[in-house]
């Protein structure tokens, strides 16, 4: 179902789905998907669990056949894939370095360089079972880079990563895009943090509910129906970043410059469970209340 893109046409598109549909368990897991990822762009697929996000990623990778439509890949496209957390049995003695070269042969120098690029060069000899969630995701990113990809497909890249690590990981992903001029397709059910580092959001619930720049999508009625009226985020107030949007993008208003943690709750939790308000005014009111 995959055919090379004509080189002259849509110059820097890496992968494109046209009317893509995938069936499973006797139903359409996703249908009528139009999507493309271009070089240098981060596209994030969000949506409820069971909405077909992973199915879409697997179809783009060629792991499940398209039952309708087609997938076009740029000629010679190399894809680096980071699946959701692997289930490596504890009895398998596997070091990070060995995991890096499990399917792709590379010299020790190349392995070290790739690990250094994601900030985990010191972990090369560590057993993979001893890594934290964030370390593991960085190792998997380095592993994907080792294949010198044009396109990275990341399925829930911050899964199992603690709250502070999330933002750093997204920053790393954005840096990799800039440095290596990659196209990145990210799958996430995480609404808040992910949007800030994304050029284009695709909101998926079996079909594409809405698509566009993050700040536009969050005002889309389809998005609000899916995630509720409080699920809006603040984007950068920079009109150049809005790009092509098929919904009304004329609402950038009150947002601060780069509110990474904007969030439909008004608080988050410290590791010990104590409540921290994101809204400084409310925090101040509470402080005042406590003091008085």
């Amino acid at each position, binding site marked *: 179902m995959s055919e090379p893109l004509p080189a002259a046409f849509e110059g820097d598109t890496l992968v494109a789905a046209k009317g893509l549909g995938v069936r499973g368990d006797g139903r359409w897991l996703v249908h009528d998907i139009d999507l493309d990822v271009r070089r240098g762009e981060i596209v994030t697929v969000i949506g409820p669990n069971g909405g077909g996000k992973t199915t879409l990623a697997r179809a783009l990778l060629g792991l499940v056949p398209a039952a309708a439509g087609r997938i076009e890949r740029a000629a010679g496209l190399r894809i680096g894939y980071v699946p959701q957390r692997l289930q490596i049995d504890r009895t398998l003695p596997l070091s990070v370095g060995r995991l890096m070269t499990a399917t792709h042969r590379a010299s020790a120098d190349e392995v070290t360089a790739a690990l250094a690029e994601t900030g985990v060069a010191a972990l090369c000899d560590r*057993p993979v079972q001893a890594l934290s969630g964030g370390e593991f995701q960085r190792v998997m990113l380095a592993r994907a880079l080792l294949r010198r990809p044009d396109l990275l497909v990341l399925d829930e890249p911050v899964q199992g990563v603690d709250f502070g690590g999330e933002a750093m990981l997204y920053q790393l992903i954005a840096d990799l895009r800039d440095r290596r001029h990659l196209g990145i397709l990210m799958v996430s059910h995480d609404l808040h943090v992910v949007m800030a580092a994304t050029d284009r959001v695709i909101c998926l619930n079996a079909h594409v509910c809405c698509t566009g720049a993050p700040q536009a999508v969050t005002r889309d009625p389809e998005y609000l129906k899916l995630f509720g009226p409080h699920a809006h985020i603040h984007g950068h107030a920079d009109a150049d970043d809005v790009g092509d949007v098929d919904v009304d993008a004329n609402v950038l208003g009150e947002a601060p410059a780069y509110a990474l943690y904007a969030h439909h709750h008004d608080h988050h939790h410290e590791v010990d469970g104590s409540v921290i308000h994101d809204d400084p005014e409310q925090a101040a009111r509470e402080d005042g209340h406590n003091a008085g």
Partner: protein
Amino acid sequence: MGTMLDDFFVRAVLAGIGVAAVAGPLGCFIVWRRMAYFGDTISHSALLGVACGLVMGVDLGWGVVAVTLAVALLLLGLQHSRRLATDTLLGILSHAALSLGLVVISLLAGVQFDLMGYLFGDVLAVSVGDLGWIYGGGAVVLGLLAWIWRDLLALTIDEELAEAEGVPVMRTRLAFMLLIALVIALAMKIVGILLITSLLIIPAAAARRLARTPEQMALAAAAAGVLAAILGLAGSMQFDTPAGPSVVIAAAGLFAVSMLPKPRYGGR
């Protein structure tokens, strides 16, 4: 033939060493892939293979390979349809195949048949011909395993990732099934079909803490299996205990020793 091979005990030890050396590395994959119950199910179907071999008048070893492979493929197919949880499926197939084998054999009136020997092994009755089977077949299994090692390890880490990165997943999985079927046919004579899985997984489990790489663990598992075979058979001679179960107990003993606190290797 040398006089050494005239001694039934020497033949038994050589057979045990040959089988254990092959079962250890393959057993590592069974442990890593959490397929212990799968291995049990496949080996239980070996009795049906013996019965089919008797009915059709072909070599019993090939009967076992054919039937165990067929059951393994059936299992893969049923797993793929996902109607039942895998452990339920394994439980059904495991006991249905064993019972079917017992029933078919009971219907073969007039055939002289040492059922206990097939269930629990009859290593002291190993012939020089059997030894040829074990060492020839064992060399084939180890060669095939070395051939698919890298791909099989990639599958063991994550099948979907391996597939996305161009590893021939289906072909590798089928080759692995074939290896399991071959090892079951080889090991049947030593420990019997009810205890074969133990020869696959116990040495591998015992080797875990000695190893830092998959290859080290495979070698250590082979060594542990060989040691268990020697210790078990010697014990069985000494105390006049059944040979197959004695080998399994020796392996379990080695596993217990490997679990003792070990400050020198303990750090991670």
